[in-house]
């Protein structure tokens, strides 16, 4: 069925707005709660924050642009002397805290250490000190003949980022997730085998709430792949595994949440079993819907939406790139089968988005069941032109404008995407390029 994608009526009529080019691979993208700020982390440990500007007269039909607001080095490479191994400075995840005052706070993490950063603005400075000059030099006390009151004068806006807390030494394994709790006081961090609960004010202690490390490591068959706090119930969180299961835990039930309250797993289809069944069932991302009623999981080939009240199967399944199922062996050979794609909801939970290969990303409308494939590429679209839907040809005959599976570039992978919490503005990270797309407003 063809997708009728007229500009005025379709949910997915996005235009390419901005492209930012990095020197490093972007490793995480996240809007803040209002959508005013967009944070990105990269492989070099840097964080770049973009801010939404007001609409300008030059662009009456578009929302404001996102401009660079602040850049700082969040993590540096470290060396673990105990294991003679380097600890990468790559930012795995960034999560914003809800804004409580003029400053903005975010958590950023690499494999081992989580940091709380404060980003604040300074647009005034005091002038007219008595004891020192404007350039800071001390005034000669004998020259001071009168007292003056320093005055606050406007200055060019300066955005400062300072590390306020460093949460270190609590993870033996690689941190894959952080999630701020709805109580705004605690957050969880998850590595391959353990999940810890932290208080934002306390850095030298954390509670271990999940531990799946077996006494005998030889028995290890499953690892934690992602974890998230429930958006409204501060006692509930979920974590996904490499075996395609999701466990929902209630922190009121016990101090150690090794026993789940709910266990989500879809029974395997025996007809599609292969050597790679387990690998492709491994969940790479889990996200609650904004409503808190559903959660979405991403495995290698599909995205599944689960109703929290139904554990035995998902309520919706969307195929991201089913045409890769016959190519699993090659993808296993070139390691692509281990790629971890993320997924996200739009603000109203009516649509979901996830990335694919060849710089393609996919969107699914949950109500109309329509889906679209778009490409994040500078060559393929003119600025301000509506993005053309892409199609991968699976059959023998390739239509015009379609691309065959064998021509897909598996080095161009879109692992990280983010959707503005209110508007139809999306951020897509394609290796070292950040694309910001928005839909046209009439």
């Amino acid at each position, binding site marked *: 069925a063809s997708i009728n994608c007229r500009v005025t009526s379709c949910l997915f009529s996005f235009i390419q707005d901005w492209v930012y080019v990095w020197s490093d691979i972007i490793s995480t993208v996240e809007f803040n709660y209002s959508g005013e700020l967009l944070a990105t982390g990269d492989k070099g440990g840097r964080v770049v924050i973009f801010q939404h500007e007001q609409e300008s007269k030059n662009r009456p039909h578009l929302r404001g642009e996102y401009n660079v607001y602040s850049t700082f080095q969040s993590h540096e490479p470290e060396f673990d*002397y*105990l*294991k*003679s*191994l*380097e600890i990468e400075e790559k930012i795995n995840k960034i999560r914003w805290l809800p804004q409580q005052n003029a400053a903005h706070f975010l958590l950023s993490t690499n*494999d081992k250490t989580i940091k709380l950063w404060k980003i604040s603005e300074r647009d005034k400075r005091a002038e007219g000190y008595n004891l020192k000059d404007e350039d800071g030099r001390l005034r000669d006390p004998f020259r001071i003949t009168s007292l003056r009151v320093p005055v606050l004068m406007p200055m060019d806006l300066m955005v400062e980022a300072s590390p306020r807390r460093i949460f*270190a*030494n*609590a*993870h*033996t*394994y*690689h941190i894959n997730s952080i999630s701020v709790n709805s109580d705004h006081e605690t957050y969880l961090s998850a590595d*391959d*085998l353990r999940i810890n609960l932290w208080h934002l004010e306390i850095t030298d*202690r*954390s509670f*271990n709430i999940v531990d799946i490390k077996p006494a*005998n*490591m*030889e*028995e*290890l*068959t*499953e*690892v934690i*792949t992602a974890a998230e706090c429930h958006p409204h119930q501060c006692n509930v969180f979920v974590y996904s595994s*490499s075996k395609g299961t999701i466990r929902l835990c209630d922190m009121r039930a016990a101090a150690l949440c090794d026993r789940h309250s709910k266990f989500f797993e879809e029974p395997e289809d025996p007809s599609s079993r292969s*050597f*790679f069944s*387990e*690998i492709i069932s*491994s969940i790479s991302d889990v996200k609650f819907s904004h409503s808190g009623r559903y959660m979405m999981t991403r495995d290698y080939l599909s995205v599944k939406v689960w109703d929290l009240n139904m554990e035995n199967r998902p309520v919706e399944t969307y195929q991201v790139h089913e045409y890769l199922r016959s190519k699993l*062996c090659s993808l*296993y*050979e070139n*390691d692509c089968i*281990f790629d971890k794609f993320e997924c996200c909801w739009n603000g109203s939970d009516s649509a979901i988005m996830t990335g694919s290969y060849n710089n393609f990303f996919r969107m699914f409308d949950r109500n109309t069941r329509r889906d679209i494939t778009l490409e994040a590429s500078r060559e393929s679209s003119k600025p301000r032109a509506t993005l053309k839907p892409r199609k991968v040809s699976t059959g023998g005959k390739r239509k015009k404008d379609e691309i065959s599976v064998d021509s897909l570039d598996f080095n161009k992978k879109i692992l990280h995407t983010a959707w503005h919490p209110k508007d139809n503005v999306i951020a897509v990270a394609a290796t070292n390029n950040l694309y910001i797309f928005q839909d046209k407003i009439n």
Partner: protein
Amino acid sequence: MLGRGVKRKWSCLEEAEVVSEARQLVLGLCLEKLQRYQAGVELSLRRSVLLINTLRQIQEEMRSDGVGSCDVHPDSCLLRDDFREDVTVTCPGCSEGESPPELPSQEANGSDQQKPPAAVSDAVNAMGYLGDLALDDIFEDIDTSMYETSDLPSAWASGSLPQSHSTAGSLQSCLMDLNELDHIMEILVVETHLVGPGLQNGFSL
């Protein structure tokens, strides 16, 4: 009639061959990936676990098909935490006196690994090679209990897995030289000097 009978037999064989070939390919890839090791970079535990599970699945299938008598258990030798206790254990299946499993080609890579002592003795035990050499005695004084590995042992990482009989041919090329063993022992001596009393484990486990 004869023709039909022969035809059926061949297609069955063909199918089994295709499956077995696919299995061999994936098995080979599994082992290759487990062996691949980048010095100084920690392996992804998720990737390693998925690879091992795939390997086990293939071996299960092979066993149930009656293909290999080799009970290859990569986990028991290699997914270990506390080396000291397990140093003398050989993995089940290796003690059955099967064809010598592949030796680690990890000497070049393992030079800056944290656990060469256990890794080497572990690999050696798995191999059965130089089994009578009292390597355990040499490494007895090295206390590895103060820290735990956050990763699977280097020996396993480098793929010191007992090979199934079908790949025995390639094993010969991977036998460790005595020279290389000397090299490792040199490094071990250096390593023990590096691990001093000043280092602290800050993990809250």
